């Protein structure tokens, strides 16, 4: 078991290394940090432009492989992921942004998953009834709408509600805003700002997981061991909860591990629309800002998240599935 895990881990690390290197080559050839200096008014001296680019290892006059080597050795020797073209080190930026993303996605994804799994399991036991059809269609509908459209519509509704009541109940710009200084005002303010993005994330996650869970649950309900459980005299509810639900939760666990890990960069739309300065937003600004090192660092972070999810999924299966645990 231990050797197997170690081999998989090594394989993952090699995969990640190659993926990040490829991303570096792509970003370094496709993005153009020089253009940032060229559009400055009044124009800068070409020599000084070249010098600042050289200093940051971004000059396209240096051969690509040489730049790559400098970049790689910096990371390996001093964990320095490079500077952005006109700003500071990218890893400081990332360190600041990870908790923001975490705060944004934590509630929504957890709540959404729980609601989704519950809904999916419930609708599977009521297949083709009215409630099943409504919820199935509802989740199909939510998954067919781009995330930012849901967010925008909710924003409009919130604005109207605010205007109608005359009280700013819903906040949708940034993480925090101005608030009174009564006890717990800061927390209340944060929760106010979190409400709308969390709602959107909950909707999307619930829709996603209810579809998965419904399918898995239907498979489990139709299987022989549930029939056996009923035949030996277990009441339906017990057969469903103990045998069908538990079995069908195993694959859902792996999905959950994956989605949680990838959400760090997947909540980009929420971050941009609700002005949370998290990782997803950083990914977009690095590309529009021709920031080679920033883009590669975000890609590396996202890759680590995917692999973390994969490992987490493996562990989840090992915990939930006795067949894996015992073999």
């Amino acid at each position, binding site marked *: 078991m231990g050797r197997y895990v170690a081999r998989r881990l090594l394989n993952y690390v090699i*995969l*990640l290394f*190659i*993926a990040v290197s*490829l*991303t570096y080559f*792509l*970003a370094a*050839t*496709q*993005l*153009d940090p020089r253009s940032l200096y060229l559009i400055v008014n009044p124009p800068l001296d070409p020599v000084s432009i070249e010098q600042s680019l050289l200093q940051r290892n971004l000059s396209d006059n240096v051969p690509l492989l040489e730049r790559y080597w400098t970049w790689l050795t910096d990371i390996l020797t001093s964990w320095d992921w490079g500077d952005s073209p006109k700003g500071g080190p990218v890893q400081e930026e990332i360190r600041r942004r990870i908790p923001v993303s975490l705060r944004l996605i934590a509630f929504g994804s957890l709540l959404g998953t729980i609601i989704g799994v519950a809904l999916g399991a419930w609708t599977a036991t009521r*297949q083709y009834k009215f409630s099943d059809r409504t919820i199935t*269609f509802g989740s*199909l*509908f939510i*998954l*067919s*709408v*781009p*995330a*930012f*459209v849901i967010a*925008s*519509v909710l*924003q*409009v509704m919130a*604005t109207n509600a605010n205007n109608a009541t005359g009280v700013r109940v819903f906040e949708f710009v940034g993480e925090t805003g101005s608030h009174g200084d009564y006890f717990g005002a800061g927390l209340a303010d944060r929760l106010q700002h979190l409400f709308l993005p969390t709602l959107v994330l909950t909707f999307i996650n619930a829709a996603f997981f209810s579809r998965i869970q419904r399918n898995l649950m*239907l*498979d489990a309900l*139709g299987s022989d061991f549930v029939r056996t459980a009923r035949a030996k005299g277990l009441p339906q509810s017990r057969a469903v909860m103990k045998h069908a639900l538990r079995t069908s939760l195993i694959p859902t666990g792996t999905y959950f591990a994956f989605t949680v890990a990838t959400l760090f*960069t997947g909540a*980009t*739309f929420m971050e*941009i*629309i609700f002005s949370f300065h998290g990782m997803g937003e950083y*990914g*977009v600004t690095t*590309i*529009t800002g021709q920031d080679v090192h920033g*883009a590669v660092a*975000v*890609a590396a972070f*996202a*890759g680590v998240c*995917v*692999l973390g999810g994969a490992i987490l999924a493996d562990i989840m299966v090992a915990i939930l599935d006795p067949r894996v645990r015992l073999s």
Partner: protein
Amino acid sequence: MTENLLETASERPVEEPLPIEGESKRLTRRQLIIRRFLRNRTAVVGVFTLVALIILALIGPNLINWTYDYVDRRAYLKPPSDRHWLGTTQGGRDMLALTLRGLRKSLLIGLLVAILSTSIAAIVGSFAAYFGGWFERVALWVTDLLLVIPAFLLIAVMTTGGPKGAQAWILLVVLLAAFGWMLSARVVRSLSLSVKEREYVHAAKFMGLSSPLTITRHILPNISSLLIIDATLNVGGAILAETGLSFFGFGVQSPDTSLGTLLGDGARQVNSFPWLFVGPAIAVVLLVLSVNAVGDGLRDALDPTSASGGSAR
């Protein structure tokens, strides 16, 4: 019964069902599929909506007075009126014409990406399963590698640095397809693994049929249900991916337009100028919803293990 089994994914035209005395009439596989599909109301409505949208995208632009790139100098950023049914943009372009144009582009992108990525998935997955050995290992490794790379970011990088102009959307199609086939390829592989051990595949092999022909003639047709479902669902996925990329300005570029580009512009001003948002939003939701509904219906109808098809008769 045997006839039905042998006929999986047959291309044969529907024949008159043979009447068997004392029993209800027998159904060919195709009739069975159609019957199961028609039983799913959502899917049927989806087909009609989808056909309507396709017709609208094809002939709609000829029915209205404005072209998508015409600038009406007397109407900048005007709300819907008799002159412009869905209002105009900041640049004085008619929203209805733009929406129809965007619908056409999004449909085209969705279809092309789906066909491309499902083809890649089918080829990589089935060849990996059929040949096994180092070929399979390399294919799986590449699949894993592409899964680790954050596709969204990479596509954004490449479209930012890539060529601009009227044909730039073709690059977008290629990139979306290149990063969209991995999960399906894994499923194709695992299905092909079981199909390749069937007698008819062995027979084809021993009769001297070349490997590519064995795969395309005997393995792929037998997993065609999966491929059809996958392609359908990929259409919706591709449209949503394009929409997301265009929202950030990494997708289809002006003066050309897609539903995503329109939505991206509209979403930023939705509180002040809702007409820039509502039209494209409804179009994209209808489009993706109908495609997904059809995909769901196809899954229920084509997948013999699916319980949701109801009883067979």
